[in-house]
C-alpha cells in the first residue's frame, strides 16, 4: 500500500513538472501574444493541479491537506480570471490584427 502511494505520487509530480516546463517553454517561444496566453494557461491549470495532487499524497496531518486544498481551489478560481482580464485588456487596447492568409 505504501509502495502504491509512492508510485502514484511519483507519477503526479513528474506529470506536473512536465506540464510546468511545457507551459513555460510555450510562454517563451510561441510567436504571438494570444498563443503565449495559451502556454501560460497550461502551466497555471495542469501543472498546479498535478503538483498539488502529488503533494497531497505526502501529508501527515489533516490540516496540511486542507491548506493544500485551499491553495488549489483559490488558484483554480483566480488564475483563469487573471488570464481573462489580461486578454480582455489586450483586446480592448491593442485589437486583433489579422495575418496574411488567415481566413476571416
Amino acid at each position, binding site marked *: 500500500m505504501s509502495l502504491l502511494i509512492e508510485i502514484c505520487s511519483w507519477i503526479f509530480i513528474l506529470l506536473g513538472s*512536465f506540464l*510546468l516546463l511545457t507551459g513555460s517553454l510555450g510562454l*517563451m517561444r510561441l510567436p504571438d501574444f494570444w498563443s503565449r496566453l495559451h502556454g501560460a494557461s497550461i502551466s497555471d491549470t495542469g501543472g498546479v493541479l498535478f503538483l498539488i495532487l502529488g503533494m497531497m499524497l505526502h501529508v501527515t496531518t489533516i490540516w496540511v491537506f486542507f491548506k493544500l486544498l485551499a491553495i488549489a481551489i483559490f488558484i483554480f478560481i483566480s488564475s483563469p480570471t487573471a488570464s481573462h482580464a489580461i486578454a480582455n*485588456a489586450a483586446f480592448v487596447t491593442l485589437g486583433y490584427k489579422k495575418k496574411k492568409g488567415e481566413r476571416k
Partner: protein
Amino acid sequence: MFYVATISILISFILVLVRLFLGPTLYDRVLALNAFGTLAVLMISVVGFLFGRPDFLDIALLYALLNFIGTIAILKFFRYKEIGDKKALSRKKAQ
C-alpha cells in the same frame, strides 16, 4: 522526488523571466508576471515539503492572494491611469 519538482520549477522561472524582460508589449510582461507568481506559490509549497516543514503552506496561500490582487491592480492602473473608484474620478473631473 521533490528535487525533480524543484529543479523543473527553477528552469521554468528562468524561461518566464526571459519572456518578462523580452516581451514586446506591456501585456506580455503582465502575463509573465502572473505566471511567475503562480510558480512562486508552487516553489514555496514544494520547498516546504522538501525540508520537512509544511508550515510554509500558509505563506504560499498568502502569496497566491497577493498575486491575484497585484495583477488586477496593474491592469486597472494601465487601463484607467488611476486606482480608485469611477464615481470619485468623475466627481473630481466635474469640479
